[in-house]
């Protein structure tokens, strides 16, 4: 099997051996869960319950107000104790439903289908939408919306993203090993909905055991081996590596005839359509040099970070940073109060020594940032434009095409905050265009 890849990228310390061999353990629900109404890209869900309401597990507690949104369900049975703003892993306060666990784990009646592939396309789609499924690889785009491109678009490929290129994380790896059948079923269901002619699963070549496991069920589905390189799982890089196509600048994957979905999303789709189960739990890798017992958990959504870290034996020493997600694109947390959401694939704790910002030196134009940029930008120029508030120049040099993978900042020998300044430029460009159009 030949290994496919893209131009650019980096080879950070993957550190996946910490958890790659630890099977998924079910973490029981805490006494209270905090379920944010915003766990996806788009409009927040609107709460349908109020303080004092009794809820069953799997019951809708937040409705989607528009297509680019997703409903939210109760992960446990119990009583709503508050509907209020609570800290979110994104650093802000977000309207959340807080449920006290009654310990009964009583579920709503689930609508099961033993042979879900036979269902109509529309039925499958409505079940995906109703289950509140969003992209579980990190971005959280509502899956139903992503599976319904404009009618005139032809979808040649449905690509399942099993690259898991973020260092440290093994949640998708374990999922492919332990839920291989559901991955394949989910892929077939999604291909039926979006009308994809061909399904390809992309997996980095450091997960050959997952490849072997999936091949037991894959049939006509192709598995593409990918070079182990970050950001191989970036949507644009994955499409380029597997199909040779490029997503148009400022466009979407369907314009290249491709729909990409994460493998965890596929499992959620399979369970939603076959078992009638909404998205109320996910696999989370708890890992890092200062975590006592790094491992993988199946966690009810809404479980505070604190409970999950404790279940992994707590910290070996006071951490410098706690990150939700991976070390390249994850969000640093102010504390452990915020809950896990649908998109949280890992909790990573770094030591104090690893967490301090390094000393910044002048740019020596070594061009390593140019060589690693997977969208072929000139990060050193964009950084200078961002720093000098030259927004028009930043736009002309493609700042809006930046995927924020962080390779430039990672590789810089002068330890310059390249991506950070590119983000500043992007925000200013967006703000200026809003001002113009309003």
């Amino acid at each position, binding site marked *: 099997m030949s290994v496919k890849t893209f131009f650019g990228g980096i080879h950070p310390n993957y550190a996946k051996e910490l958890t790659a061999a630890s099977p998924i353990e079910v973490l029981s629900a805490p006494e209270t869960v905090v379920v944010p109404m915003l766990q996806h890209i788009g409009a927040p869900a609107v709460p349908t319950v109020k303080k004092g309401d009794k809820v069953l597990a799997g019951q809708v507690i937040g409705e989607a107000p528009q297509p680019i949104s997703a409903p939210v369900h109760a992960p446990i049975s119990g009583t709503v104790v508050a509907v209020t703003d609570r800290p979110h892993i994104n650093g802000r306060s977000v309207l959340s439903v807080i449920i006290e666990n009654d310990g009964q784990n009583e579920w709503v009646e689930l609508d099961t289908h033993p042979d879900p592939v036979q269902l109509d396309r529309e039925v499958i789609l409505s079940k995906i939408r109703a289950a509140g499924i969003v992209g579980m690889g990190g971005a959280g785009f509502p899956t139903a919306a992503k599976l319904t491109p404009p009618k005139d678009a032809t979808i040649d490929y449905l690509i399942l993203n099993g690259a898991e290129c973020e260092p440290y994380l093994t949640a998708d790896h374990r999922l492919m090993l332990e839920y291989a059948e559901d991955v394949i079923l989910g892929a077939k269901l999604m291909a039926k909905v979006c009308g994809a002619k061909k399904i390809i699963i992309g997996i980095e070549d450091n997960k050959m055991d997952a490849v072997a496991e999936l091949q037991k069920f894959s049939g006509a589905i192709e598995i593409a081996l990918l070079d182990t390189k970050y950001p191989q799982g970036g949507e644009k890089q994955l499409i380029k590596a597997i199909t040779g196509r490029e997503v148009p600048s400022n466009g979407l994957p369907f314009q290249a005839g491709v729909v990409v979905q994460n493998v965890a999303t596929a499992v959620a789709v399979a369970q939603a359509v076959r078992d009638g189960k909404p998205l109320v739990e996910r696999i989370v890798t708890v890992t890092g040099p200062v975590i006592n017992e790094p491992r993988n958990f199946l966690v009810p959504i809404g479980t505070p970070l604190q409970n999950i870290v404790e279940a992994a034996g707590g910290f070996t020493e006071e951490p410098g940073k706690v990150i939700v997600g991976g070390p390249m694109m994850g969000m640093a947390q102010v504390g452990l109060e915020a809950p896990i959401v649908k998109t949280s694939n890992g909790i990573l704790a770094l030591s104090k020594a690893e967490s301090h910002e390094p000393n910044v030196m002048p740019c020596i134009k070594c061009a390593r940032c140019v060589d690693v940029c997977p969208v072929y930008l000139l990060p050193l120029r964009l950084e200078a434009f961002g720093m000098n508030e030259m927004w028009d120049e930043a736009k002309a040099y493609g700042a809006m095409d930046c995927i924020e993978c962080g390779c430039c900042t990672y590789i810089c020998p002068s*330890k310059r905050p390249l991506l950070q300044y590119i983000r500043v430029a992007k925000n200013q460009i967006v703000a200026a265009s809003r001002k113009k159009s309003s």
Partner: protein
Amino acid sequence: MENLRLIVTPSPHVRDKDTTPNIMFAVLISLIPVAAASLYFFGFNALRLILLGGAAAVATEAIFQKVRGRQITISDGSALVTGVLLALSVPPTLPSWMIIVGSVVAIAIGKQVFGGLGHNIFNPALVGRAFLVASFAQPMTTWTGPFDTVTRATPLVVGAARSSLPDLFFGSVPGSLGETSVLAILLGGIYLFYKGIIDYRITLGVLGSAAVMSFLTGANPVFELFSGSLLFAAVFMATDMVTSPYTPKGRWIFGIGVGFLIMLIRTWGSLPEGVTYAILIMNAVTPLINRWTRPRIYGQGVHKS
């Protein structure tokens, strides 16, 4: 765990181990073979010039930064690299005070007046060298043979027919300190390439275009590449990160331009060697090359279906 004091910064949260001082240190290591060869062939003169050149460069940087009230950054190793490179590019009999003047000019005018590390347009060592050639033309073009102090013509003057290829390869010929031994230069170059510090496009561009040019002008390409400071410059001077293009295509153009200009000056110019000016000219057009060779961005020019 109640009172965690966590550090919050935007992603990415991990960094590569390599640092700019590490790069400068690696360049110094890569110069060990050529420095050793120069000590072997030219003895005490080599030691004298390398030590004085390096020390004067570091001292100039420190004094300049102190006077301007800036942070003193000599520990990043970049000034030492400049001083040693300059010393390795001068004849073994150059008087001590001249190498000191050269180092002062290299750092003060070549680097610090532009704003220090990363901001200079021209390769500082070559600015120093150009100054020395213009000011002290005779001592800068008087070479002695290896193992003696008798003035001799360099292979470039003698010509291909009367030069021995093994002598050129091992370095037993008259010339500037670091440029005589092809073997030592290749060792340093392989190390720099292995460490990811020099870009093959620039080095191959210089050597390739010089070879093609010598072929077209009827000269012997192997002799042209092995003699004078061409190879030394292709590996250590033209590849200076700060003063060469940062786009992949630009690095080819830069290298090809340097090789072309070297051969142009060697063949038709009145100077025996054209490496210094060839690189300085290409340094000057580097910002333009960068502007003209911006890579196509992913997804741009792609048809929306």
